[in-house]
């Protein structure tokens, strides 16, 4: 593009893509064992920065176990052993010297069921920043609460009742509060484990729109059972089956012309 040549739109997009894509997370040969059972089998993949990567596959295929490896949530599960390396901005997060608490401020997580703390909306958001010493005054706190709620698309709905309990909100609002709570510590990656599975279609659409906004600043990895959702929100999709990564490609390829027969069977509903 530097020589000011006129190029076709498709070529322009390719050039744009190739220059703007940067790898955020490198997964190398990750295996996870629950006791003797291998739940995730030798997964390697690159996660691009400022993109949404969807993980799809039937129940028990290892996608949730895998996503938990990325912020070392499996550490809290008894009998769970993780092998392999995950490089996050060039740091191997499986290195024992890595500060897990710090890691989880950089790699936030949103779960299947909204789980706000039994505290006010305000306190839900400032809880972690206070703990990590990211805010030092009331004004900073207020600013952060407003910024986080705006990013999570919830500010206008709750601005007049920040002292109300987080659990008093609707399901969709609670989930957005959890997203606001996650972004309050400014993570560069957000992991989402079926974030819309307990929400109605309208609340789901709001979250999906939010994901589209969030990826401008952050990298998102989402586990979903809803294939239409994966198709709608993500740039890349990975299909897991029996702990193995069967196919990982552009979402468009996975849902229109997958290379693997197992992927085709799964996405067309011929194989569970």
């Amino acid at each position, binding site marked *: 593009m530097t020589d000011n040549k006129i190029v076709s739109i498709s070529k322009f997009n390719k050039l744009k893509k190739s220059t703007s894509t940067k790898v955020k997370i490198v997964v190398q040969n990750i295996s996870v064992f629950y006791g003797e059972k291998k739940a995730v089998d030798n997964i390697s993949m690159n996660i691009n920065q400022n993109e949404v990567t969807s993980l799809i596959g039937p129940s028990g295929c290892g996608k949730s176990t895998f996503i938990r490896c990325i912020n070392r949530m499996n550490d809290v599960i008894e009998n769970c052993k993780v092998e392999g390396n995950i490089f996050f901005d060039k740091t191997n997060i499986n290195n024992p010297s890595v500060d897990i608490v710090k890691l989880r401020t950089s790699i936030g997580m949103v779960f299947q069921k909204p789980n706000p703390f039994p505290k006010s909306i305000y306190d839900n958001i400032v809880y972690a920043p206070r703990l990590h010493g990211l805010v030092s005054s009331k004004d900073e706190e207020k600013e952060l609460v407003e910024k986080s709620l705006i990013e999570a698309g919830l500010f206008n709905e709750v601005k007049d009742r920040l002292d109300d309990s987080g659990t008093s909100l609707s399901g969709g609002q609670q989930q957005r509060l959890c997203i606001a709570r996650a972004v309050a510590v400014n993570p560069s990656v957000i992991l989402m484990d079926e974030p819309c599975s307990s929400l109605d279609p309208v609340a789901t659409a709001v979250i999906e729109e939010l994901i589209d906004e969030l990826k401008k600043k952050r990298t998102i990895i989402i586990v979903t059972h809803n294939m239409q959702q994966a198709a709608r929100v993500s740039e890349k999709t990975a299909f897991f089956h029996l702990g193995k990564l069967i196919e990982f490609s552009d979402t468009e390829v996975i849902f*229109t012309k997958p290379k693997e027969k197992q992927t*085709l069977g799964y*996405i*067309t*509903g*011929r194989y*569970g």
Partner: protein
Amino acid sequence: MVEKHIVKGFDSDLDSIKEKINNISGIVESQLSYCYEALNKRDVVLAEKVIERDKQIDKHYQELLDLSVRLFALRQPFANDLRYVISSLKIASDLERIGDQAKNIAKAARWLSKLPQNQTVLSSDSLFNIINTNFRKVGNAYNEEDSVKAKKIWFKDAEVNKAYDILFRETLTYMLEDPRNIASCSQILAIAKNLERIGDHTQNIAEMVFYYVTGSHIENKLSSTELKEYSSQKKYKTNISNIFKKAKLIAKK
């Protein structure tokens, strides 16, 4: 699509689409046969029947459209299922157009049937035969989901063009030789043009079968030799200046 869906209703919906395509295709095939017969036997009743039966094709086409919309709304197909429904819709559209061309041919046949029986009418048999064979074969390729067969039929369009070119030349010559032939020949030209268009629609159907089965566009999958050969065969060979020379000679006589 040998493997079945977990939801059986999905398979039966896809089967309904296939059934509907075969219904339309069956009617269109018989329309073409009736056209051929109506032309050769100068049978006005049969020609009227073809014109009347076109409504059946339109009705089936509308039903297929409804089935497809229902399937999109209820099943949200992906990958080869999605290609199947989209391709079937496009195939149905081509079939519907072929139905219209058959109706046009029947109208010309009706006109020709009113000519005195002793007046010779130029035969379009050769073009008709190629069209009929290709049409039948493309239906088989669709049902058998056979991209190799589809590709072969796609190439056959060059033969259609060649046969059209010959008929076009013959018709012009006939008209030049004797102006009394002009009336019947103008109808033959219309028939030839409609048959040539049917050839194009058949080629489109072959393209869609190939796309559904492979996920690729046929023209992107041709080798440079194949493409070169096809392009050279597809070109019309009739030299208009030669025909004018002939016309001048006839005028002198």
